[in-house]
């Protein structure tokens, strides 16, 4: 076998390995989704979305969990987005390129890899007990904010870093201050990518279970929260609760809840894509 044949053989082998990996992951995902849809679809109804949980399967609904998740995500967004984006702006545009900045940046990367249950323990000690916020929505939102802050900072920083230097120079060259340059040129240009990164980070928060269990979010809530200080449940917790029950019907109800959760996630991701398209169009005219 000459060299050329060997090379071609390797090339083909590599392509096959990649193809098989792709197919395996797609098939597994498809099987999982099929299973969930077959089990859960018949339970999906408007009543399911508008009812509180119940110990009778036919009356159980996801209302309190859905509302809990919506509250949670809005609060988390309100807390984490301004802080994360500001931190990223500071690190990318203002901070001196010193060793300290480097160390801080590396540690933010490390924080993004910390298991979420650890954030749950921190939230329990700091927010639930330390600040005496109890098992409230705001404690949950603060915990989830901590969890996604590193992701928001990293993705925003990357978005800002991708803005061409020539754009900054053009603005500075006209006598713009640093704030004006950031506000009128850098942020608008980076906005599509900042939005995408932030929405994906929020999608991660909405699917988190472990930290919420750690801070003691309730698993059976028969009311919707009215203020950020109310106790709450969230969709992943409700799903976890239903799956751990002995009655087989509840496993199917959990599947229905998973479909609702997936729909919420898909809506958020679609929003990210639409917003990005819209901004890109606006920039390119």
């Amino acid at each position, binding site marked *: 076998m000459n060299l050329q044949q060997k090379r071609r053989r390797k090339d083909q082998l590599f392509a096959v390995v990649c193809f098989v990996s792709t197919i395996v992951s797609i098939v597994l995902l498809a099987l999982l989704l099929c299973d969930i849809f077959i089990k859960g679809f018949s339970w999906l109804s408007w009543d399911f979305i508008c009812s509180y949980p119940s110990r009778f399967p036919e009356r159980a609904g996801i209302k309190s969990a859905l509302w809990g998740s919506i509250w949670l995500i809005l609060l988390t967004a309100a807390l984490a987005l301004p802080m994360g984006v500001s931190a990223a702006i500071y690190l990318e545009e203002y901070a*001196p*390129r010193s060793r300290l900045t480097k160390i801080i940046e590396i540690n933010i990367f490390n924080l993004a890899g910390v298991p979420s249950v650890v954030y749950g323990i921190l939230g329990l000690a700091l927010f639930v007990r330390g600040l005496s916020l109890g098992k409230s929505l705001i404690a949950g939102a603060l915990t989830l904010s901590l969890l996604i802050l590193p992701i928001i900072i990293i993705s925003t920083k990357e978005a800002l870093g991708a803005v*061409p230097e*020539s*754009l*900054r*120079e*053009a*603005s*500075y*060259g*006209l*006598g*713009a*201050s640093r704030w*004006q340059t950031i506000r*009128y*040129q850098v942020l608008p*240009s980076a906005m599509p990518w900042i939005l995408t990164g932030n929405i994906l980070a929020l999608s991660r928060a909405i699917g988190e279970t472990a930290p919420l269990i750690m801070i003691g979010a309730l698993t059976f809530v028969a009311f919707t929260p009215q203020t950020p200080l109310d106790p709450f449940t969230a969709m992943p917790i409700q799903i976890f609760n239903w799956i751990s029950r002995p009655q087989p019907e509840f496993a199917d109800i959990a599947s229905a809840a998973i479909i609702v959760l997936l729909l919420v996630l898909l809506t958020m991701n679609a929003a990210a894509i639409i917003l990005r398209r819209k901004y890109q169009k606006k*920039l*390119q*005219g």
Partner: protein
Amino acid sequence: MNHEEIEISVKNMNLWYADNHALKNINMDIPRRKITALIGPSGCGKTSFIRCINRMNDLIPTVRTEGEMLLNNENINHKDIDVVSLRKKVGMVFQKPNPFPSSIFENVAYGPRIHGEKNKQQLAQIVEESLKNAALWDEVRDRIDRSALSLSGGQQQRLCIARTLAVHPDIILLDEPCSALDPVSTSKIEDLMVKLKEHYTIIIVTHNMQQAARVSDYTAFFLHGELIEFDETKKLFKKPKEKSTEDYITGRFG
């Protein structure tokens, strides 16, 4: 050049990128309302020099400068100088056209707006006037709200000049403004420069010696971070005093 009015007086200017001594003891008087061309091979320090005049080097963290650069008897190389108002007085056009990703109107209106002009009529007037002065108005008058990125490279570069004119600078720095353009666009920009020198002091970095010979009144030749020769363009090209200047302009190196 005793008979010329001086716009910028450079005294013992030095610049380092970390340990790299990129400008060595530059002394130079740049005349008012003339075109001064800076020539020399790549890496000779001409771009570093031009970026000292509007303190654009401040954006590079490793840069260190020493010496004086006097503009209206004020040392603009002093650390307490307000770079924002300096850059309002000293406009810059870059090597690659870099319009903002917004409309033609917004590109030109941005400068006056950040300096506090809010009146819409006033802004519209400044935009029209600047585009006319940059010889672009006739080509874009009916699509002023279209994206600046829809313009050709040459038009984009004239838009960048218009954008600079809109903040009413005294000095315009052009850093190889034609290097990314075709010959037709290049000659349009050269004509424009000659027209603009009535009102502005123009300093242009160029790799194109014919361009320096065609448009400039004075030429400075840089080599290895030193100013080798600075004279009237006619004299410098016809009868260079230094051997290395002659070698460079006759194409023996660079």
